[in-house]
């Protein structure tokens, strides 16, 4: 090889390396500046979701929304999001927050306060309960996307056949279920299907029983657990002795939402407790054998008490470590706009967070259940709103699961122990208050 040829060859090689370098390193950098990373879970109606995000991109040329899909379980999704926040990951801009997290994310300095973007007048257009959940120490950290509350679904056909009105009290529900089970003689039929696995959903389900007996989980002012109060324990005992032992099958102790819903949509459960999305799912003939035979009412209460529904739902939050909070806000604003929430409500049956949509004729025509659900949503009870909610929840999960999974559990002793554990965690907050 001559010297000249070698030189030319070297030049060509240099050029190739340069081009490769640009393609591999510089080009993605230029693109990354307009990339918005959204950490979400898999939606029930994926095409609608994709379409909405495509619309946002169309309105903001040069912006690419990258979706990172996390696990569906709230607990596991929490671990994913908090890990990114703890590592101060600038890759994540917008994320979903369960209704129980804003206090924690705010106290830990993870979520960006949105007061500058999200005016008080605008906040008034949303349901009060989720807005309150998104507020911590007087500042707002999230924009409500969906709102959820526990509802009772029932088999209209079976109740009519046996001449029962929808139950208003828990003992009535148990009585009805036992009668129907005895007369139907279907070995596969079960009376009650709900979420009793040891996980966050257990706290939601059990809180509804406790509150609808006039009990409570904690005293917010005194920062004290109230699990050991007779009313709270009475409700837990009822679940163990009547719901689990008499009308449910044992498998319920391992059920989350999908398993319990599947049982109901397969026509194997008389009563079913779930969030509002189950309405759409159980009335869809493609996935449900009981489409058209489903009724929905507020959850029962104990005699002389008021019904209670746990507040659930999802918020959009912005990471404090996002490099592009302005654009992130535009995305959040778009996703929580009246237009987008309406689209999602029409397609998925999830409860929108904006009040006005509950009077929207188009939505009410498609999902008439929203009319009656509106009151439940406005009255729904929040779970303890505190930065130490996760430790409290783990104590509650352990307590409730131990109390109901073992037939002769010593509820008094378990409640005392759980109460003591909760008080120890709550004492951590006392330090701050005294300062």
């Amino acid at each position, binding site marked *: 090889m001559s010297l000249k040829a070698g030189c030319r060859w070297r030049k060509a090689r240099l050029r190739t390396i340069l081009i490769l370098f640009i393609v591999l390193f510089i080009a993605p950098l230029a693109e990354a500046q307009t990339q918005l990373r959204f950490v979400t879970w898999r939606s029930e109606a994926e095409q609608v979701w994709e379409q909405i995000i495509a619309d946002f991109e169309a309105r903001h040329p040069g912006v690419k929304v990258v979706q990172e899909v996390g696990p569906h379980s709230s*607990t596991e999704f*929490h*671990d994913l999001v*908090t*890990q990114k926040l*703890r590592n101060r990951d600038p890759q994540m801009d917008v994320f979903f927050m369960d209704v129980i997290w804003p206090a*924690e994310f705010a*106290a*830990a*300095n993870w979520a960006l306060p949105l007061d500058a973007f999200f005016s008080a007048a605008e906040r008034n257009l949303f349901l009060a309960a989720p807005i309150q959940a998104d507020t911590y120490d007087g500042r707002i950290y999230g924009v409500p996307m969906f709102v959820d509350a526990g509802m009772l679904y029932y088999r209209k056909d079976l109740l009519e056949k046996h001449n029962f009105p929808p139950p208003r009290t828990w003992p009535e529900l148990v009585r009805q279920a036992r009668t129907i089970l005895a007369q139907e003689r279907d*070995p*596969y039929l079960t009376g009650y299907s709900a979420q009793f*696995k*040891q*996980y966050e959903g257990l706290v939601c389900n059990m809180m509804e029983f406790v509150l609808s007996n006039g009990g409570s989980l904690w005293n917010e002012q005194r920062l004290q657990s109230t699990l050991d109060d007779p009313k709270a324990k009475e409700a837990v005992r009822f679940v163990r002795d009547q719901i689990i032992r008499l009308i449910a*099958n*044992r*498998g*319920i*102790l*391992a*059920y989350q939402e999908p*398993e319990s819903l*599947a*049982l109901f949509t397969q026509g194997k459960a008389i009563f079913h407790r779930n969030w509002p999305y189950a309405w759409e799912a159980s009335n869809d003939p493609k996935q449900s054998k009981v489409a058209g035979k489903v009724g929905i009412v507020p959850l029962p209460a104990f005699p002389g008490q008021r019904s209670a529904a746990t507040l659930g739902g999802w918020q959009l939050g912005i990471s404090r470590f996002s490099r592009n909070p302005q654009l992130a806000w535009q995305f959040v604003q778009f996703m929580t706009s009246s237009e987008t929430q309406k689209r999602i409500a029409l397609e998925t049956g999830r409860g929108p967070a904006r009040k006005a949509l509950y009077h929207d004729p188009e939505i009410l025509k498609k999902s008439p259940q929203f009319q009656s659900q509106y009151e439940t949503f406005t009255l729904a009870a929040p779970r303890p709103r505190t*930065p*130490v909610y*996760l*430790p409290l929840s*783990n104590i509650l*999960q*352990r307590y409730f*699961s*131990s109390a109901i*999974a*073992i037939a002769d*559990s010593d509820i008094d002793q378990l409640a005392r*122990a759980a109460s003591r*554990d909760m008080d120890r965690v709550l004492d*951590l*907050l006392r*330090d*701050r208050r005294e300062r």
Partner: protein
Amino acid sequence: MSNSQDPVWRFLLPSFVFVGVFSLYPILESFRLSFYRMILTLPWLGQKFVGWENYRDLITDPVALGSLSTSVIFVAVTTPFEVLLGLAMALVLNESFRGRGWLRAIVLIPWAVPTVVSSQMWRFIFNDRYGLFNYLLFGDATQLYWAPLAEPGLALMSIMAADIWKTSAFAALIILAGLQGIPGELYEAASIDGASAWRKFRHITLPLVKPALLLALLFRTIDALKVFDLVFVMTQGGPADTTNLLQFYGYKKSFAEGMIGYGSAIAVVVFLLSLFLSVLYIRLLGTGLLGRERQT
């Protein structure tokens, strides 16, 4: 005396750096954090040195003690099963027959599948409505179906079964390596002396494969003590907290609840337990490996 010119040091340096950065530093950091009270969600509490407080809390925390005993039961039940099953598999795989290569590869599949995937599979197998476990037991009589993952008495056993299924192959692999090191002449000599198959196994195979057995036991014990993914996918610690293994509890404290100090204390305890067991086994193993046996 060695100086920096000595090439041995230069060859060793990369591995020292690697171990230092990826093993030693995290361990020391866990030790350090376990003496602090640090709660991520309450940043105003700061990072306060609290001495042995986390450890004092740990030994009086009934949940931690409960999960420690669950972990001990888990290790005590799964490891002997895994090593015995592994030995049986290794003995079969060590024989020569048609398709042995294939079988050796197939046996390793459970171990090669990511634990999260196999845990999900086992969750389906133990499902109370359509699980294979129930189908094998009861066939079409679905009203008799059990819900193993919902029963406080059965959930831990279900997880143990999944662990045994998954990791016996790993034990088999180690034991098979040990078996292959046994010279064939010993068996030939024994055959000439008219020894039965059992005697050959008892007096040749077993003594010579002992180091491999102990090694498998060592690896499995340490791994079983650290089991996390099975619980995470299959039960999340329930029902009634019966599958709340120590490592999972520590994870929940550190990562879900943000209690870094307390979570680190749990991690340190798991580490010390593994270290103690490792030293114990290595002492047993050492005598076997170095041939310092009593008869010689």
